[in-house]
């Protein structure tokens, strides 16, 4: 809320500069984590795997390639979609606290807005898929839609459950990250509530691979079934934008999990007061938290599982995960009564 006290133009400048820095950082760490992800997955599969900087090379390569626009597609829409996908992914980054700091646009949007924004990149993929007018992309787009609608519900349940619990201990808007950080869920609940919170955490960890379209939920892009799905017709720069957006989205999703469940910072604990060292320590600690969440919810799950069928995936989300989320919610509620 500090921003509003400053003059309007200064705030704008700060936001623009901050967003650019965040976008660069997001792109950098998104790609870096993708590289780590690929390296670790390769080692788990008994092979050397690409160097960690490989995703950067991929992007550079894609940018150097010709971007073909398919005949018969809606060319402006076809080209707009990757752009929208990337911009919204970056926008999401500005609403989520990263590197142990407050979210850049904290005063301008809360968790509910994030729930909405999270839909847009998937939607851009879907529209891009339809705009390519390839049968593979069309099937891919339909699947992405089904998946999207399926995981949206448990995601909402998990987020609302946390906010609802926090609203009982404070009058501040519980949908704001700083409130979540101020009242970490684990500190508010007793043993039953911890179990409930674990259920919610589990829900979110399972939603993450769906949101970032990784095995077992990469159905919309399933290479062996529909030849790269949504993206079959994309090439060159447009593909690069989707690639980049995808890595940023993964970073965003994992940061969201971290922000909701592990909003702790290290600097107060080890007693570093000065600003600069604290920022560094907290940033590193944040990156470590992201890595751990990523390792479990993305790397381990994707290497240890086969792809689900669309019906199985939506069953898992709509029924199983929502149920687990609701159980978490009830447990937290029970915890309050006890």
């Amino acid at each position: 809320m500090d921003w509003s006290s400053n003059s309007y133009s200064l705030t704008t400048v700060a936001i623009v500069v901050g967003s650019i820095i965040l976008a660069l950082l997001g792109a950098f760490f998104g790609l870096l984590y993708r590289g780590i992800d690929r390296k670790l997955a390769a080692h788990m599969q008994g092979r050397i795997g690409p160097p960690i900087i490989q995703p950067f090379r991929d992007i550079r390569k894609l940018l150097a390639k010709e971007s073909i626009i398919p005949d018969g597609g809606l060319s402006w829409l076809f080209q707009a979609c990757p752009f929208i996908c990337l911009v919204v992914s970056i926008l999401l980054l500005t609403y989520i606290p990263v590197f142990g700091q407050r979210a850049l646009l904290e005063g301008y949007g809360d968790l509910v807005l994030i729930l909405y924004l999270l839909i847009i990149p998937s939607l851009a993929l879907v529209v891009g898929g339809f705009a390519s007018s390839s049968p593979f992309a069309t099937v891919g787009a339909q699947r992405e839609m089904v998946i999207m609608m399926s995981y949206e519900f448990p995601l909402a349940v998990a987020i609302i459950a946390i906010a609802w619990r926090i609203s009982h201990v404070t009058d501040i808007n519980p949908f704001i990250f700083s409130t979540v950080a101020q009242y970490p869920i684990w500190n508010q609940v007793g043993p039953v509530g911890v179990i409930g919170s674990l259920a919610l955490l589990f829900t979110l960890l399972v939603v993450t691979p769906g949101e970032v379209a990784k095995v077992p939920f990469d159905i919309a892009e399933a290479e062996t079934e529909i030849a790269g799905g949504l993206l079959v017709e994309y090439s060159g720069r447009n593909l690069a934008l989707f690639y980049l957006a995808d890595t940023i989205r993964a970073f965003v999703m994992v940061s969201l999990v971290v922000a909701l469940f592990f909003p702790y910072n290290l600097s107060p604990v080890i007693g570093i007061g000065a600003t600069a060292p604290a920022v560094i320590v907290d940033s590193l600690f944040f990156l470590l938290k992201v890595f751990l969440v990523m390792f479990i919810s993305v790397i381990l799950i994707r290497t240890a599982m086969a792809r689900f069928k669309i019906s199985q995936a939506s069953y898992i989300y709509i029924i199983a995960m929502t149920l687990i989320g609701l159980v978490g919610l009830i447990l937290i509620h029970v915890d309050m009564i006890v």
Partner: protein
Amino acid sequence: MKNEEMETTYTIPVGPIHPALKEPIRLDLKVDGERIVDVDVVVGQVHRGIEWLGMNRNNPIQNIYLAERVCGICNISHPFAYVMAVEHAAGISPPERAEYIRAITAEMERIHSHLLWAGVAAHEIGFESVFYLVWRVREKIMDLIEYVTGNRVTKAMFQIGGVRRDITEEQFPRIRKTLDYYKSIFDQLKTVFLDDRTIRMRAKNVGVLKREDALKLLAVGPTARASGVAKDVRQDQAYSAYADLDIKAVTPDILTGSIVGDVYDRIIVRLLEIKQSMEIIERCLEEMPPGAILAEPKMAKVLNTLKKAEGEGVGRHEAPRGEVIHYVRLEAGRETLATWKIRAPTYVNLMSIPTILKGGQIADVPIAFASIDPCISCTNRAMVVDRKTNEKSIMTYEELHQLCVEKTRRLSNGLVK
């Protein structure tokens, strides 16, 4: 929303160049949303005129290597059936030792082929780690094949009247070592494939082929056995060294006590067959008699004999994918074969594909299709091309059938004459 918006069916062509299929083939799927209403298999994308080459250009020895390249995966199976057919036609009998070596190489091929299949199947359902695991394990048998035959893939072991390379005493330890390796990891592979939750979800009750259907559609090989049809040429009409070994067809009830005929059962059958093949190789090593490996080592002489020979012969072999049959006819004074007809297992098994896929989901297509372990390259020998105009015509089933009947008649007339 599903029912209202996706009521209309539309057709998705899968292939001919499609990552799910290692080879060119086209499936025309009629789908309603995600559900498959109808399936049409369109083959003929990789027709290379193999039989034509064998009847118009090659002498019988050159044909061994052509037969080998009907299919790069079962490249023991086709030469095996082919040389048996020629030997049958010309009255040559290979020495006993050669029969054992043939069986050993054929079983090594079965191990590599089933492992390859297991990896591809895992890949089809997006389980990359298992694909990598199985293909890493497979490299050991590839090394062994290279060690025994001189090449990883095309083995070039077979010769009319025997085999081209001996397996010597000094090679036994290395072969046994590889078999021991597979024994040591067999249980692990079994657990990975049969107990994994996601694999079970994707394989159980998917792509079911009932016993009646398997019988009606004449399925062969593991596809038939997984449906409970206990047929196996090595058991039913034992040939070569198999005659001494008493092979029993593997069906899934050995392990589970019941037969469903789904993808899962096909996994079980292939896993158990890997084990069976290891046992066969071990027994062959123990019981292999000494002696020559060729009935006639001078190839020029063999060519002469075959040129003079007159007659027809059939060779049948249980390939990793099922029964492969070669039919040849020799005419005296003719350097090439007078007739060569190959019946490959996948062509037969493709008939089951519509039954297996119908009612399933698009997502089941690759794994259900892969579960018959299709080897397309051997099924694509019958494309209709008008050589004068270069025009392709799509033929109806009736027309094809008519042609087929006519050909059969022509061939049988040629025989009677």
